[in-house]
């Protein structure tokens, strides 16, 4: 009887550089945004409808729970775009692929995304 050999995939025991954190964050925000797409279309529909529909949409979005959702969406979009720009710059060889450049640009992404999240948070409340 052939036994399956175990594999070390004990991810929690491993240490990852900031570049890895950026990458998984990019993936998570991407998936999150997908789930928000229907909401975006819903908003667009109300924007293009009559004035009362627009007003009722704004009223709905001012609910605390909706503001939280909106914050998550906008913060995710901001992170995903900034991390995506970093990818594009590296692909175009404008940003270097060295580990140092990778780490510095990763920290920059985190910083800008954080600032954006704070800005949107303040704007929403």
């Amino acid at each position: 009887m052939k036994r399956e050999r175990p594999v070390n995939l004990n991810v929690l025991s491993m240490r990852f550089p900031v570049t890895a954190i950026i990458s998984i964050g990019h993936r998570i925000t991407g998936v999150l945004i997908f789930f928000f797409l229907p909401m975006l279309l819903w908003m667009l529909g109300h924007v293009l409808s009559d004035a009362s529909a627009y007003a009722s949409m704004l009223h709905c979005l001012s609910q605390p729970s909706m503001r939280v959702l909106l914050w998550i969406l906008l913060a995710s979009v901001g992170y995903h775009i900034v991390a995506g720009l970093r990818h594009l710059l590296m692909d175009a060889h404008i940003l270097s692929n060295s580990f140092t450049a990778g780490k510095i640009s990763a920290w920059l992404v985190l910083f800008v995304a954080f600032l954006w999240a704070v800005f949107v948070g303040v704007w929403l409340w």
Partner: protein
Amino acid sequence: MVNRLSRRGVQDWLAQRVTAIIIFAYTFLMMPRLFCPHLNTHIAWQALFAHTWVKVATLLTVASILWHAWIGLWTVFTDYVKSAGLRCLLQILVILVLAAIGLWALLLMVQ
């Protein structure tokens, strides 16, 4: 021998980047309107979307989002979902959702 499948990597890689640039350009141009009180009014939005080119740009961006999202989610599924049956089901669901979003956007633009 190179066939359609064997060049899929290059095509998806390029498509991700091109659609990303389109989405970024649209978002970059639209985003300020969200935060400017005098532009974020119902009348201002109506006026903006009265232009055909805005509708075209919007649909182009929606199409880009659909393709970009599909490639991204396909990658996620092929990483984490090893059961072929479950992966197939999830992919069909995603395609349906994306198709619905695309058609919804189209209907909104032609109204």
